[in-house]
């Protein structure tokens, strides 16, 4: 499964590290990343493409928890059915 996520974050020197660390630790591989610094609003816009088998909602929630992240949007998901970590209804 491949997912594209758009993020807006406050511009602090270590924001990219925080985002990439969460992606790795929560079980996703990074396929591509694009970052632009908007100096007028002091924000970063980040576009990530990640792949992994865990539910993407878990990664979304963890990224939203980052204090510097102000907005997050899951734009696209491609691939097989989501197979979650053991989940029983």
């Amino acid at each position, binding site marked *: 499964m491949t997912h594209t996520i758009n993020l807006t974050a406050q511009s602090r020197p270590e924001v990219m590290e925080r985002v990439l660390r969460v992606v790795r630790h929560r079980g996703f591989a990074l396929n591509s990343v694009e970052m632009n610094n908007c100096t007028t609003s002091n924000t970063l816009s980040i576009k990530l493409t990640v792949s992994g088998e865990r539910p993407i909602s878990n990664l979304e929630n963890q990224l939203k928890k980052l*204090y510097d992240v102000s907005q997050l949007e899951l734009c696209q998901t491609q691939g097989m059915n989501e197979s979650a970590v053991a989940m029983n209804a």
Partner: protein
Amino acid sequence: MTGAELVLKVLQQHGIKHIFGYPGGAIMPIYDALYDSDVQHFLCRHEQGAAFSAIGYARSTGTVGVCMATSGPGATNLVTGLADAMMDSVPVVAITGQVFSSLIGTDAFQEMDVLGMSLSITKHSFLVQSLDELADVLHQAFELAQSGRPGPVLVDIPKDIQIGSVDFEPYPIAQREFPTPSQDDIAQARDMIGAAQKPLFYVGGGVGAADAINEMQDLLEYTQIPAISTLKALGTVPTEYPYNLGFVGMHGNQAANLAVQECDLLICTGARFDDRVTGKLDTFAPHAKVIHLDIDPAEISKLRKADVSILANFKKLLPELKVAPHTPEWLARASGLIAEYAWRYDYPGEQIYAPRLLNQLSKTLPHDHVVSCDVGQHQMWVAQHMLFTSPRNHLSSGGAGTMGFGLPVAIGAQVARPDSVSVVVSGDGSFMMNVQELGTIKRFNLPVKIVLLDNQRLGMVKQWQELFFEERYSETNLSDNPDFVTLAKAFDIPALSIDKADQVDNALQTMINSDGPFLLHVQIDDKENVWPLVPPGKANDDMLEGNNT
């Protein structure tokens, strides 16, 4: 004023009276400002001790704890404590000195990338970039540590910022904000509770963190729904509540583990389906629908799908869930389980049986007490056999399971609650991990009572070797321990050693009646294990039982 003086002003604005730390080159301006400040500093004997004391301070009161260290090795020594606070959602603010801004990135003396190290072990962290942002960053640190799901926040302050001059401006402390739950979700949860035949509250540390212990107790009283508790929740459900099924999970009470397997509605209240609770996840509560109540959206459906989830301030939410289902058969079943699986203390022989000693200790302690423990078999015995009236009175390293936690946490609790009896229950392995903090106890003459359960083993690891590694006891024998009584005496702390069951009563009285600190060294059988036990990877109804349960 200087940046260093500003740091102390901000601490005072946030009501901080006590801090724990250790000085060094890069934080000397702050220590210099401390010299004239009303904030009382407790010099620990290791920065890890300072971090854990801040945790003990925070957890025993529900307020924020503060620790401080210098750059480089001072900061790295805080790391384990901050990681522990992260896993157990404890509001701690750590302040570290950093080398001059111009030296960052030059491999200067004691210059390390503390911000980089902090990323995975704090809720958030700051490297202060300029004097202008110093006050704001510190205020944010205090707000963040305590808001939403609490956690540790680190502020790394370069030395040039500490010595620069800055104006102090009063700062309005913001009102805390909470998510507003949807009335539809609340209505749905109420319907599910009303319709359930076998409802069960699964109570976690989030209730205490939200300061909603009274609201939880009122809700139980009203609904009469049976309840199970995580390690961190112990003390939330009143011990006299007739449907208190007790501690759930790997070393939990059989009653709790069986009830969870039978329930048809699990109301998860500030808990997170940790693997030590659930055993094999896809066998956990197999017949239950789940209502998940929390403050952290990332916990919802992380491991177990929630049928209804509500993110809210528990103080407001819990009273809205007062629906009393009519489930006489289920209540009879819960009562039956509680009676059937009550702990037993009829242990034969002359030796000291640790579970009985701990149960006795609980009954002997004055009402106002706080128990910290270390990690291992003794930690599980504390959870099983001691009785608590609040989660603030039971301080145990849950998520991280950090040996060395107990002694410095008991120090922090004693500083925060000088009128409470602060007791630490430790094992001979764990005790040696922060034994230097006996120096802190003596320095401040803190009347911390230490119960050291000495089985001359890394008991919990030995137990797993016995059960799962064919009794191959690799590196778990501690029969060359120091003489703990002599060790305590070297710190001028009175101590007593016992090894017979008939000495326990007097020894506990002597310890509790002592004015200052006291170490009670208790020699126990190295063969004693913690029962029951859900083997790793098994379902919770697949518990192993030993001889003495």
